[in-house]
């Protein structure tokens, strides 16, 4: 009787604790969102989207240059990372049954696990060192390299999910292998691949570490692709660690804008793919 009581008590206590753990984590999420939304929304104004940063001491100003800078860096990253990842994903899903594809998979996993700051060092060595100055291009290369593994993985996963009967149908009609792939299989997997791309973009949009010594930063508009540029995440970092209250407000506004963007894309993409199958991240 006493043993049974002890076992029942342990049962109840431990099961309750697991529930507490769950709601602790969910609570942290709510606190983060709530605190950020409160501070961000109260700091946000139209100026944030339209004006340049102002020097220390003046109030007001915005981060228009950083928003554009982030967009430019992300565009470059997409142009670099997505084609490589996409075609390599097609290779692994459609032609990849050799030992060589095992090697590619291993390299992709390796690349995916490399800390983003190390990717930054790599982009510095690839672009900044030979060109002798920091640039939007270098930031794009850094984020582009980070996009490759996820781009590959989502492409491969969604191509493999296309039913074999579709391929067989196309082949039976006399289509060649490559024609089957590009006119039947890829269109069938299009939604999944596009959602994966959005998740991938959202992931690198918040990356700061690889931009610190590639895109660097810039208090003004950055013209062209070969000048340093401000980006939203690096502005959050610089403004948050500065000792000025007005800068802190700007950092909250920037954080809020960034988080809203990232979470909206995540929610939308995950719903588009269907919950549970969205394995965009490692």
């Amino acid at each position, binding site marked *: 009787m006493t043993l049974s009581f002890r076992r029942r008590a342990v049962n109840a206590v431990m099961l309750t604790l*697991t529930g507490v753990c*769950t709601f602790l984590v969910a609570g942290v999420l709510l606190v983060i969102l709530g605190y950020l939304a409160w501070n961000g929304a109260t700091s946000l104004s139209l100026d944030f989207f339209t004006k340049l940063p102002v020097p220390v001491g003046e109030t007001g100003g915005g981060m228009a240059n950083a928003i554009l800078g982030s967009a430019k860096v992300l565009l470059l990253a997409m142009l670099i990372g997505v084609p490589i990842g996409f075609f390599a994903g097609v290779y692994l899903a459609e032609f990849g049954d050799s030992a060589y594809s095992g090697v590619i998979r291993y390299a992709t996993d390796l690349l995916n696990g490399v800390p983003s700051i190390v990717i930054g060092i790599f982009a510095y060595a690839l672009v900044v060192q030979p060109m002798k100055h920091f640039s939007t291009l270098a930031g794009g290369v850094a984020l582009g390299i980070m996009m490759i593994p996820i781009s590959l993985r989502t492409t491969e996963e969604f191509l493999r999910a296309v039913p074999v009967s579709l391929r067989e149908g196309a082949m039976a009609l006399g289509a060649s292998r490559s024609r089957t792939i590009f006119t039947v299989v890829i269109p069938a997997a299009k939604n999944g691949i596009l959602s994966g791309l959005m998740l991938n973009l959202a992931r690198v949009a*918040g990356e700061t570490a690889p931009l610190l010594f590639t895109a660097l930063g810039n208090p003004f508009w950055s013209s062209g692709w070969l000048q340093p540029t401000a980006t939203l995440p690096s502005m959050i970092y610089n403004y948050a660690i500065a000792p000025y209250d007005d800068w802190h407000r700007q950092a909250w506004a920037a954080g809020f804008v960034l988080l809203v963007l990232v979470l909206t894309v995540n929610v939308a993409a995950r719903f588009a793919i269907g919950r549970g199958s969205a394995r965009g991240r490692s």
Partner: protein
Amino acid sequence: MATQPATLSPSSERSFLQRIRSGDAVAHTLTGMAASTILAVTILLAYHLWSGSSLPRSAFGWSFVTGSDWDPVAEKFGALPFIFGTLTTSLLSLLIAVPVGLGAAIFLAELAPRGASDALTFMIELLAAVPSVIYGLLGIFLLVPFLQSTLVPVLVSTLGFLPIFQGQFFGVSVFSAGIILAIMIVPFIISVSREVLLAVPQDQREAALALGSTKWESTWKIVVPYAMRGIMGSVFLALARALGETMAVTMVIGNKPQIATSLLAPGYSIAAVIANEFAEATGNMHQQVLIELGLVLFALTVLINGAARLLILSTKAGGK
């Protein structure tokens, strides 16, 4: 040729096949080239880290990782405080995140109804999508003041006799960095562990319950051990992420290269020192030393990711 269909003449047959083959060959080559690019990028990355740090490797050798003096101006480079800071913050974060994450995964996999479990998991996975610089922002303005006003005074008054909770607390510290990291890695542990728990066959649970065990006993003594390798895999993945995490740690660790017994003292991490000093490195040697730190970080994460993948693959392949 005699066995080919009579409707196609041999010559048109050949050109038809050739056309198909050449199209396939083009697609094969093109996609194969993209795949090879990834291999090339990975090799080039390792090569740059290796060749970019040749100066300090020949100058300091292994004393680089055992020395604890860091003075770039005097060209004294000992990386031990950074390695120490990276390891302590990561281990501290695991110490917090593993029990909480495993508890939540058990709740989500074993107790919660499937619909609620999916919704909660979806929410928790969103936590993993929050950029690290935003965790840093919240660390500076939400976590550090909270620690200073509430948690640390309580810890010091109850556990202050322990050497790890002694000394002055300035807010920025190894302790703060560990907590921020724990919040960042807990979603990974939950989402992977929940999945491996859900993959445990139902008859394992039923057999345990039929023998008279309570729900908790069946979970803790049967289901969790069955899924142990996958759970360990999730922990390793989380550890790899914690080791390489830069922004959030840089913003709350205090950036002071010292090795202190107390968790409440400021510290420094490998990723943080690269982030702070790389763009303004004072000379060739300084920059190469930072690249060598990148190499150390790269090697650590490659090892740990490899171990994680092996563990997760082995559970998927054959259960225990």
